[in-house]
């Protein structure tokens, strides 16, 4: 028998706010976190827009030495984990920490640490390279650091599937709880890739929005006919997951039941989705089957919705294929319209958004949806938030490499 899994805490570090309340306030208001990229000099870059995390001080969550030996993605992850625990009011000191685990998804990890360190290697030689480079760069350092700080001695690893990473992380954490490997899991994703090398490569692959450098808040426009690429973002989302029994035993407040996970690959192309979206459609269907949820029970889909020409069209087709006639009755919105694309952290930030939509019986809007695209013809909740009951929600993610990962949540009235 599988244990039921519930979400009991939310942690978020995003371009539109840190912490659950600030994040929801911005999502509900439709506020964009996209601005001119101030992370580095963008002269010569086709896209000069980014969604940076601005109101964040790493030393609020980590001691100064740890800040120095870890990289920005780890800072975000530790902060989001700390916020999730705080939100869930879980006293880890009192928990059986051998049954508490961590899974964090990331696409790039701390690879940005290579950019300055590689210059040291080339210009000054191997004896000048910092021994801290490893602890900044490795993709598993975020979950490792969370474990060290909190003394969580259960299952712990990182997951990487580009922009599908977070949903894989949360889905796998759910499985660990379902099958009795742990009682408590912190799961999500973290990313800090607004760096010259990564942004240049995204620019060169023509995936970033390049037509809105002078109107950055309009650059991320999922499903709109004028969309021209995504806006690179950064941040982290972590959710506190528990078995239903564990949550009940401590009287925890429950946001929702995490009940379905589906994962597939397009096996088609390294960057382009299958044009008909059937790889993502299969993941949605698998996730709903896993949850025991019929398509008609779903009220809301939090789309991957990147604002690229190819994704938004293929995802629209995927939703139609997975939901059939119910697709037209779904509310579908893209968190990326406001926070940009958090890459490996995207699914986690969007999971937190989805849970907040359920909590508030309000679906956040897709901003900048102004000119309909005949090939994107679902209800994308344009412009303004909508009050509506969200009893069951689906959250989609897809990544370069063809990976698709989908989560299903439903209201947990029984808990």
């Amino acid at each position, binding site marked *: 028998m599988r244990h039921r899994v519930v979400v009991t805490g939310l942690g978020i570090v995003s371009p539109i706010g840190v912490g659950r309340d600030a994040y929801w306030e911005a999502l509900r208001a439709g506020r964009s976190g996209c601005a001119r990229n101030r992370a580095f000099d963008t002269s010569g870059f086709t896209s000069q827009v980014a969604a940076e995390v601005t109101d964040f001080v790493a030393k609020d969550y980590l001691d*100064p030495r740890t800040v120095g030996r870890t990289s920005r993605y780890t800072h975000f992850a530790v902060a989001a984990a700390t916020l999730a625990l705080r939100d869930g009011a879980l006293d880890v000191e009192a928990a059986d920490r051998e049954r508490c685990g961590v899974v964090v998804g990331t696409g790039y990890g701390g690879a940005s640490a290579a950019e300055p360190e590689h210059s040291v290697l080339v210009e000054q030689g191997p004896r*000048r390279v*910092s*021994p801290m480079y490893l602890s900044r760069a490795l993709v598993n350092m975020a979950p490792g650091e969370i474990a060290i700080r909190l003394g969580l001695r259960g299952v712990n690893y990182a997951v990487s599937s580009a922009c599908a990473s977070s949903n894989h992380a949360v889905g796998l954490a759910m499985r660990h709880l379902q099958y009795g490997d742990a009682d408590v899991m912190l799961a999500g994703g973290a990313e800090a890739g607004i760096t010259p090398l990564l942004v240049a490569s995204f620019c060169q692959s023509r995936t970033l929005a390049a037509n809105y450098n002078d109107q950055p808040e309009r650059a991320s426009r999922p499903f709109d006919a004028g969309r021209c690429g995504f806006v690179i973002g950064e941040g982290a989302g972590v959710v506190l997951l528990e078995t239903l029994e564990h949550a009940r035993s401590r009287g925890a407040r429950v946001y929702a039941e995490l009940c379905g996970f589906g994962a597939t690959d397009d096996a088609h192309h390294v960057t382009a989705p299958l044009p008909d979206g059937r790889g993502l459609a299969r993941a949605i269907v698998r996730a709903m089957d896993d949850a025991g949820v019929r398509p008609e029970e779903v009220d809301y889909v939090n789309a991957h919705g990147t604002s690229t020409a190819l994704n938004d069209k293929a995802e629209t087709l995927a939703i139609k294929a997975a939901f059939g006639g119910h697709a037209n009755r779904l509310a579908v919105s893209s968190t990326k319209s406001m926070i940009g694309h958090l890459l490996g952290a995207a699914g986690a930030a969007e999971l937190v958004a989805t849970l907040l939509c359920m909590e508030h019986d309000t679906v956040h809007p897709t901003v900048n949806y102004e000119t309909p695209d005949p090939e994107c013809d679902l209800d994308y909740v344009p412009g303004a938030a909508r009050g509506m009951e969200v009893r069951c929600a689906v959250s989609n993610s897809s990544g370069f490499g063809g990976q698709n990962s989908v989560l299903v949540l439903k209201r947990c009235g029984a808990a």
Partner: protein
Amino acid sequence: MEHRSGVRVQPEAVDRRVREVIAAILCVDTSALGPEASLVDDLGVDSLFFLSLVTSLEREFNVRLPDAEAARLRTVGQVTAAVQRLVTAGTRSVA
């Protein structure tokens, strides 16, 4: 005595700069870095931070501190003395 910038520096300046580098890595004030301060017991330096400290000092002064010699360093005063000796001897990194 020559700094990596090529500018001649005084022993007191080397001493001050060593303590500034240590302070930056360990996130402490230079006032905590008296010559008798123990790296492990007073400053909580672990093996990774110690290696990072050595690398930063080697970078800063363009010297090479052999591992065997580094392993004997216990206090801030011993670190500054070791760097002084290397700088004075004109030992240059061959890295």
